[in-house]
């Protein structure tokens, strides 16, 4: 790692492990001294952040714009980053989450109505059976079929965050995140046909 500026972003779709996220402290401290030292963190997280944005926004262009916003804001706010945050990764995805909330608000109101419909429609329903085998393998279709709070947790899970990091990113207690995740798992089980709705109802 002699020439950070020339480092090519990691192309492989790997998600940083918890251990990797925990090893960011030194790099963050270094990046506070000079923005060019931020490059290793960027290389580590640019692709996961982009994928997170793409899952939320659906198009390459929107995901790229959002990713750029995220890193501009992270760089600007880096001096205020404190080590008592759950992790840099948690903080980074908190910024990403806030950027995406802003972007989604800027979209047409139909999206809000769609979200509102999902809020009240979080119980197992007929659409679960309507999911085809194809859509059961489509992560965006699955995420669209769970309640918004469950979707947020699942999206961050897909990004590799731990429960504590998700709690930090979403600003909610870890216990609440576990509860949401439990309900999300139950919903996914139904949507993906892991168990029958009858079994699902009995478990619930």
């Amino acid at each position: 790692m002699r020439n950070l500026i020339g480092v090519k972003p990691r192309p492989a779709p790997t998600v940083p492990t918890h251990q990797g996220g925990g090893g960011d402290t030194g790099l963050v401290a270094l990046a506070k001294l000079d923005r060019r030292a931020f490059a290793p963190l960027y290389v580590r997280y640019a692709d996961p952040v982009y994928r997170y944005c793409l899952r939320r926004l659906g198009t390459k262009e929107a995901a790229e714009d959002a990713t750029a916003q995220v890193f501009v804001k992270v760089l600007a706010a880096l001096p205020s980053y404190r080590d008592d945050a759950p992790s840099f990764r948690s903080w980074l995805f908190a910024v990403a989450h806030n950027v995406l909330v802003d972007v989604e608000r800027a979209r047409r109101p139909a999206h809000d109505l769609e979200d509102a419909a999902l809020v009240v429609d979080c119980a197992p329903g007929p659409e679960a059976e309507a999911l085809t085998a194809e859509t059961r393998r489509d992560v965006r279709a699955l995420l669209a079929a769970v309640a918004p709070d469950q979707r947020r947790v699942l999206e961050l899970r897909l990004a590799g965050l731990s429960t504590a990091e998700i709690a930090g990113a979403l600003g909610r207690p870890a216990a609440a995140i576990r509860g949401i995740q439990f309900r999300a798992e139950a919903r996914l089980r139904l949507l993906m046909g892991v168990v029958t709705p009858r079994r699902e109802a009995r478990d619930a």
Partner: protein
Amino acid sequence: MPERDVNDLDRFWEDIAAGTPPDASGIDPTRADTIRRFHATNDVPGADPAFLDRLLEDLMEAQPVPSSILFSTRSSSLTTNPNGRSVVSSWRPIFPAPPIVGRRRWGLAQFATAALLLVTLGVGYLAVGPLRPGPDQPSSLPAAVAPATPSAAAATPAAATFSRAGHPVIGAWQWDYEPWSPGRNLSYAVFDADGTYVEYHDYPYVSIGTWRATGERTVELVEVRQAPRSLGFMFEPDYAVTQPAVAGNAITAWRTIEIDASGTALTATGYYEPRDGDGGVIARWEFGRSGLPLTATRLAPVPTAVASTPTS
């Protein structure tokens, strides 16, 4: 849910996300299957490498400007954010960034200003400095003087021949890392008579180093700067100190320093080297900007009033 189950489930999610073989022991097989299958759907394509390269270049080269300016070449949500949120222009590096090629016009203006300033100060110094009768020089001398010689080849064996005893650098100083924006980027340092150097910045960074006298009013300084909080892992009962944990992610720096005739201000030039986790040099960057050196002012001790013991 028992704590152990919670931890097992967390670890299972993390292993799956990281693509490492997960340990499903202790987890409901149905839940494990759900998580596995859900992650298997996670096939969103990765980012275009060209985009990532371009963004990295923008981030590294740009000053902290609103995103709407930085990315103005594309009509995007960046410029249509209804919340009006803009990037906080609070980037405040401890070590100031060197000039950027893309800001040549601004750099040229700064260079001209700096040159004019240096010529003025240099003439003033030459006019007054050599005539200085001794330590009780006139108080009207300029606080800053011409910068010391650049220190890329600063280490001079002969430097050690000067004694530290009574050197005017001894004492406490307040560094200003961005003298072109006074007060924005400060730190506090002590030069001890035994050659020890300690510096503390309000960011969680501490420097330790050593200095040696190279002249009556000149000094060389070497230092290692590190974030002590990165040693937090030592609170763990089964911690292990590895070489990168101690030596990595540090900054090594060299400065040549010249104290002004009044003994209350100094200037410094030099360079610093951020190091990666293995201790390797990432880059070498000069202190200062546009020819302007770092500056520091002496911190005078504040006399403390001794409270008298009440007698009644």
